[in-house]
């Protein structure tokens, strides 16, 4: 029976939108496989965040990390604990988000556990004997499907691959006490610097309004800005991104 884990992320004490999507996807795959799904939350406030994840998840495993017991960026705290849980519970497949932290965690797990990984998943279905992962390859020139050959692996899933949907009943929440044999080398977070206009990561965006060469001159972006204002009037979560011209 396949056991599928969704690896959640917590931001400011609440699960990210991508976490709810992964919980939904894990539950859906487990239903197709006749297996079970669990969403794993590791970090400060995991137990509290689990209350919001449970309606979307088969069940939830939480590892609360008290502030001060582990230092460093989130991925460096999560990865060694997750590696210890994988060693102990041996899940078959892991779903991770294609966020900065999600990709860092997946990479660290490749180094710590030797699990294979498929990246940039834009669709995941259950195939004959495991997940079938759809990817947009070479900048969208091709759509490929890939699978694991050894019955285990990690999939990095892009935002909005599925819509977050609640299950028929909230999943059970289990607090896990896990020992970490080897922390990763220390990286100190000396300070956090807030930047004006930075209020939400792009993968958390519900709507993205974009403009490019087609809008003509700089004035043309007025249309883009007005559309953003009409869709999310004066939202404090609205954020402007600028990408380099090529």
């Amino acid at each position: 029976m396949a056991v599928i884990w969704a690896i959640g992320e917590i931001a400011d004490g609440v699960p990210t939108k991508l976490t709810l999507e992964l919980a939904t996807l894990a539950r859906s795959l487990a239903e197709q496989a006749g297996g079970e799904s669990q969403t794993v939350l590791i970090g400060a406030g995991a137990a509290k965040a689990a209350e919001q994840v449970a309606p979307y998840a088969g069940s939830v495993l939480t590892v609360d990390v008290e502030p001060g017991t582990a230092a460093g960026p989130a991925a460096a705290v999560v990865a060694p604990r997750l590696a210890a849980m994988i060693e102990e519970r041996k899940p078959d497949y892991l779903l991770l988000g294609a966020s900065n932290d999600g990709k860092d965690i997946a990479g660290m797990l490749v180094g710590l556990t030797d699990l294979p990984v498929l990246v940039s998943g834009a669709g995941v279905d259950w195939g004959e004997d495991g997940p079938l992962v759809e990817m947009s390859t070479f900048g969208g020139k091709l759509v490929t499907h890939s699978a694991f050959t050894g019955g285990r692996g990690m999939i990095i899933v892009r935002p909005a691959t599925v819509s977050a949907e609640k299950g028929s009943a909230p999943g059970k929440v289990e607090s896990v006490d896990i020992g970490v044999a080897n922390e990763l080398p220390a990286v100190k977070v000396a300070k956090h610097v807030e930047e004006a206009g930075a209020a939400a990561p792009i993968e958390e965006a519900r709507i993205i309004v974009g403009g490019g060469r087609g809008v003509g001159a700089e004035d043309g972006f007025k249309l883009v800005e007005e559309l953003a204002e009409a869709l999310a009037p004066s939202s404090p979560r609205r954020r402007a991104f600028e990408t380099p011209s090529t």
Partner: protein
Amino acid sequence: VNIVVLLKAVPVVGTERLGSDLLTERSGQAEANGNDEYLLEKALKLTEVHGGEVSLLTLGPTSGAEALRKALAMGAARAVHVADDAIRGSDIRATVEILSAALRKMEYDLVFAGYDTSDGQGGVVAAAIAARLGLPYLSYASEIEPIDGGVRVHRLGATGYDVLEAPTPALVMGTQLLGAPRYPSLRGIMQARSKPIETWSLADLGVDPSATGSSAAWTRTIDANKPPERGGATFVREPADVAVAQIVDFLASRRLI
């Protein structure tokens, strides 16, 4: 400060294709991965100010040598090219194993890696190598500066950036915000011809060839197809205020907002 830059030779962007075995075709023209060149530029700037030298490390077929020559012309001092027939089709696990083995043979204070590659788009290899080698890992860097006995990095985040510090040796994965790469000068191109490119085989690294390549990969591509044609586009050619109202109505009618 001595820096190793991980530099992948990728198919020229726009010419990528899969072979009949569904592996990326690497017999055509290659170029240095664009994101890696930003890290090379930062490494060159740091060594120009603080001393030391920049080495390159690449993995792949002989077509990658041209990309290394350009990077040497930009200012890197030397290059190591891991090339072996057994490597073709390696999955990320094997790639990490080979690059880690090569780094164990090299001396450095810092290892730099780009955000991701134009052909793979994974963005996980750098973190995996750091974990495998037990190096501090500092990612999504928009600024990198050496400090006494260590390195300081600005890591991009959702609401700004974190200032990270770690002792060296360490591995830094960086972004394009580090600054655009330079063009090689004519003098640099001439000098690059005499700079050493060392070629290492899997045997040189002590890596078992049977654990690499497509036959040992734990992932496989099953099929590849052109994406479906996009549906017809609706053009709105009105003044901004009218256009915005029409677009909002259009999205609402499809329950997209």
